[in-house]
C-alpha cells in the first residue's frame, strides 16, 4: 500500500532578524493510510509548526510533504486553543466547514447537530463561545474538525484543557470515531498515556530544531480500554517513550 503521506527532508525556518529561527530540521518519514500517529516532544520543538505544514497553511523552507493522490486532502484541524469565532454561536461555529464547502444548508444543520451531540454539548447549540468553559469550547472545536468528514485529522493537544474524566471519555470517543470512519490521524500531545492509549505509532521530536528522535510502534491490542494501562507491555512502551523525551 502506498503511504498516505510522505515527508522528505522537511525543514522549516521562521524568518526573524538574525538569520531565521529553525523550527524543524530535516524530518523524513511516512504515514500509512488510516494510521493514527502521535507526536510527542518538548515545548517549542515545532509540533504545531509541523501540523501547519501538513494542513498546507505553511510552505516548507526545504524538503517536501507529498500526499497519496498528490493533492492536498480534506483536513479537519483541532487547535491548541479552541479557536472559535466569538461572534458565532456553537451551531454556527460547527457548521463553518460545511458552509465553506457550499453544502446544503439543512443537511449541514443536521450534520452539525449530530456532531454537537457526539461531543456531549446537546442543548448548547445557541450558546456563544464566551459562555462556554474551556473544555466545552475545545469540544466544539473537535466537533467542527469532524463535521465535514475530513480525510486527515490534525489534532494539536486537543484534550489538554479538559478535566481527567472528560479527557478519558474523549479518548474513547476519538478511538471509536477513528475506527468507524478510518481517517488518518496525526495528533500532537504531551501525554505519554494519551499517545499509547490512542496511537498506532508514536514519533518523539527533539528540542528545537525538531528532529525525529524515536519512532515507536505501539503494538497494543485494540480496542484499548482502561485495563491496557496496567499491562506490562504498556509499561515497557511508556518507559521507552519517557527515556526518549528526557
Amino acid at each position: 500500500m502506498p503511504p498516505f503521506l510522505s515527508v522528505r527532508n522537511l525543514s522549516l525556518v521562521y524568518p526573524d532578524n538574525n538569520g531565521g529561527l529553525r523550527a524543524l530540521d530535516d524530518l523524513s518519514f511516512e504515514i500509512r493510510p488510516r494510521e493514527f500517529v502521535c507526536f510527542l516532544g518538548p515545548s517549542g520543538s515545532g509540533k504545531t509548526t509541523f501540523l501547519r505544514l501538513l494542513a498546507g497553511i505553511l510552505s516548507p523552507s526545504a524538503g517536501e510533504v507529498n500526499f497519496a493522490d498528490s493533492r492536498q486532502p480534506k483536513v479537519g484541524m483541532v487547535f491548541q486553543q479552541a479557536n472559535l469565532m466569538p461572534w458565532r454561536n456553537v451551531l454556527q461555529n460547527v457548521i463553518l466547514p460545511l458552509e465553506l464547502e457550499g453544502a446544503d444548508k439543512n443537511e449541514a444543520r443536521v450534520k452539525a447537530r449530530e456532531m454537537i451531540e457526539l461531543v456531549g454539548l446537546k442543548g448548547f447549540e445557541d450558546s456563544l463561545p464566551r459562555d462556554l468553559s474551556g473544555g466545552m469550547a475545545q469540544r466544539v472545536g473537535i466537533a467542527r474538525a469532524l463535521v465535514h468528514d475530513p480525510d486527515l485529522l490534525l489534532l494539536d493537544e486537543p484534550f489538554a484543557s479538559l478535566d481527567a474524566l472528560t479527557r478519558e471519555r474523549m479518548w474513547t470517543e476519538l478511538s471509536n470515531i477513528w475506527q468507524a470512519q478510518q481517517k488518518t490521524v496525526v495528533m500532537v500531545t504531551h501525554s505519554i498515556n494519551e499517545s499509547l492509549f490512542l496511537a498506532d505509532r508514536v514519533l518523539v521530536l527533539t528540542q528545537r530544531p525538531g528532529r525525529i528522535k524515536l519512532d515507536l510502534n505501539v503494538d497494543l491490542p485494540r480496542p484499548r480500554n482502561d485495563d491496557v494501562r496496567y499491562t506490562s507491555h504498556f509499561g515497557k512502551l511508556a518507559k521507552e517513550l519517557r527515556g526518549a523525551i528526557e
Partner: protein
Amino acid sequence: MNPKTLRSLSRGLSLASLLLAIPLWALIVRLSGLPKFILPSPADVWTRFLVALQDGSLLRHTAFTLTEILLGLFVGVCFSTVVGYALAKSRALETVFAPYLIASQAIPVVAIAPLLVIWLGNGILSKVIICSLIVFFPVLVNTIIGVRAVSQSLYDLMNSLRASRWQILFKLELPASLPVLLGGLRIGATLSVIGAIIGELVGAQRGLGFLLQLGNFQYDTSMVFVAVFMLIALALSLYGAVALLEKIFIKT
C-alpha cells in the same frame, strides 16, 4: 443596585437635567433683560421653530444637510475602509503611504474648505467632499486596527479549510473587525455633521449652515438657536443609528 436600574436611573437624571435647563434659561433671560437678538427666551425659539416648520423651510434645509452628511459619510467610509484594508494587509503600502496620510492630518479641514468651495462650486459636491475628508482618517485608522487584530489562528482555521479570499473577507475579516469598524463609524458620523456645516458656512444657498448664517446676518437669533438645536438632533440621531447597528450586529 443592579446595573439595569442604575442605567435607567442615570437616563432619568439626564432627562430631568435637560428639563431643568429650560426654566433656568427662561429665568436668565427674564433676570438679565437681554434683548431678543442677543439671547432669545425658550418661548421665542419655540415660536420661531413652529414658524420655520410651517413654512417648510426648516425641513427643506435639514433634509439638504442630511443628504450632504449621508453622502459624505458614505463616500468617506467606502474610501477609508478600502484604503484601510489595503494598508492593513500590506506593510509595503503602509510604509509608502502612512507619512502622507499622517501629514494630511496636520492640515485642518476648515483651512482647505474655502479652496474646495472655490474649486468645486458652492453646491452639494464641495460639502460631500469636505464631509468625506473629515470622516476619512478616523475610519481609516479603525479599519487598520480592526483588520490587524484578526487572530492568526482563525486565519489558520480558514486556510486549513481551503477558504477562498472572499470567504476569508466576508466570514472572518469583516465580522471579526466589525466592532472596531462600527466604533470608527460612530466617530465618523459625528464628525460628518461638522464637515457639512463647515462647508455650508463657507458658501452655500441651502442647508442648516446656511440657515445659521442667515439668522446671524439678520439678527434673527431665535433662528440661529433653532438651527443649532436641529444640528444637535441630527448628530444625536446619527450617533443613535450607529449604536443601533452595534446592538444588532455585535453579539459579543
